[in-house]
């Protein structure tokens, strides 16, 4: 659905997007993950024909973004960062304006608007002036606009930024639902977001894609190990030395917690170390109060990927 080959966008003295290539398949939700200034917005602006690239090619739904811009724009629903809206219009009026602009035939407009109001849950506020709506509702009006012409592809730039946790959860729910009928490319700098919503994630940093895979594969690929958190009653140092004795355990740290100790154990490989640890504790008669797995978050993946990059860079330099 989206094919990007060697895309570069050069600003005066830096490449905001630097030779990136990726494909997005039909009905896939792909997350573009990266810190501020990574080039997410720039990539999306190129794909939505707001600005051209300096080099490289991109096609959206089979149309070239440089030569077939009007067709591309008819196929995409784009939600820009910060959701710009006409604040003086009523929500319904705005959607009607957008429906006309997106060439929806006159007799279908009402039905389409009704559907979008339903999908995004803003039926109750359709008569309100957009300027008086809360941030979350504005976001939904923006989202309703992106859906109105039933585009094949949705491009959403940081769709949950500036919302409160409750609103974030709701918007994510809406987006996940959309993924069943639309191809979605969304950007975010919030890590758990892609984990929850996306089928595939691309990590972008300084204009370059540094990793691209499913969220779970990414975790496997990288040094994940199996990290455990345990609460054990007993003498800290002694427990530590017996735990360190296990072959599959790489490191053990602990701190006092109430009348017991909290232990952090890093496994050395992919293998599940929970049984080994449990057996060791039982053997030495310590009292185990709690054991849980600490799954590695994308946060750590991101940290690893980007620091590896810079390490390589400095090594090359």
């Amino acid at each position, binding site marked *: 659905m989206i094919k990007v080959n060697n895309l570069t966008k050069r600003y005066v003295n830096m490449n905001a997007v630097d030779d990136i290539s990726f494909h997005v398949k039909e009905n896939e939700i792909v997350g573009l993950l990266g810190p501020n200034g990574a080039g997410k917005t720039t990539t999306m602006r190129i794909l939505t024909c*707001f600005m051209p690239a300096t080099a490289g090619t991109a096609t959206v739904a089979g149309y070239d973004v440089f030569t077939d811009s009007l067709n591309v*724009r008819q196929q995409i629903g784009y939600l*820009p960062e910060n959701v*710009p809206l*006409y604040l003086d219009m009523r929500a319904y009026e705005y959607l009607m304006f957008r429906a*006309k*602009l*997106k060439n929806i035939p006159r007799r279908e407009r009402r039905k389409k608007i009704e559907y979008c109001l339903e999908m995004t849950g803003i039926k109750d506020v359709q008569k309100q002036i957009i300027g008086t709506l809360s941030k979350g509702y504005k976001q939904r009006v923006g989202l309703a606009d992106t859906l109105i012409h039933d585009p094949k592809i949705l491009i959403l730039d940081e769709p949950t930024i500036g919302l409160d946790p409750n609103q974030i959860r709701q918007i994510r729910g809406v987006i996940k639902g959309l993924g069943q009928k639309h191809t979605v490319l969304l950007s975010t700098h919030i890590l758990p977001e892609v984990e929850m919503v996306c089928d595939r994630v691309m990590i972008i940093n300084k204009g370059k894609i540094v990793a691209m895979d499913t969220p779970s594969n990414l975790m496997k690929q990288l040094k994940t190990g199996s990290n455990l958190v345990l609460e054990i009653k007993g003498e800290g140092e002694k427990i530590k030395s017996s735990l360190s004795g296990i072959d599959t355990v790489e490191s053990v740290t602990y701190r006092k917690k109430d009348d017991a100790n909290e232990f952090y154990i890093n496994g050395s490989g992919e293998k599940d170390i929970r049984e080994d640890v449990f057996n060791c504790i039982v053997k030495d008669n310590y009292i185990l109060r709690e054991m849980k797995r600490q799954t590695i978050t994308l946060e750590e993946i991101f940290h690893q990927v980007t620091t590896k990059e810079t390490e390589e860079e400095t090594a090359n330099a």
Partner: protein
Amino acid sequence: MRNVNTIFQREIMSYFYSPIAYVVISVFLIAAGFFFAGNLQIHQEASLKGSLDSTQFFLLLLTPVITMKLFSDETKSGTMETLMTSPVTDFDVVFGKFLAALSLYAVMILPTWIYVLFLTIFGNPDFGPIFSSYIGLMLMGGLFVSVGLLVSSLTKNQVVAAVIGIVSLIILWVIGYLSEYGDGWFYEALRYIGTYDHWSSFTKGIVDTRDVIYYLSFTALLLFITVRNVESRKWR
């Protein structure tokens, strides 16, 4: 053309949602009424010539206020991005906005027909110059609006857009006067570029095609530059 209409409708709607349209129209009508009454007293003749010449100055000041938000506001609020990524051409957007502002301009000068009514009730005006004056007013309005539109596309600050617009129109006006202080091709060129000379023949009841062409082509040129300027975000 359908997209032009869509853009046009939204701009008109937004004019009447904001106080600007009402303020501009009120200011203009107060000024126009004042000049009309004043001219009647001084000249004691059933014509609009004097009063239209004076209201002229207010059109110069008020038209950029009508046009100032057209692009500045969209650039500032970021709606330019939603607008330009919908399936519309840059020309659709520019022309739709132009027509909306020109319509507001027409709405602004429309009530001055009451004065014409007055003149016919209490006097015996010559309708030739009156009709031609209104043709001239609309043509000039097109030029003023296109100047304001171009300026609005150059800055995201509405106030700056209005000020630069007013200054540009005043310059355009004044160079026509300057042309009377000399001879030769330079002053001839000034006379042609300036709006004053072209306008004054309309008030005398003459609709000269050269004047019509001047206004139409100047307006078209400015609209063309505006379209190019809106496109220019792409190569910046």
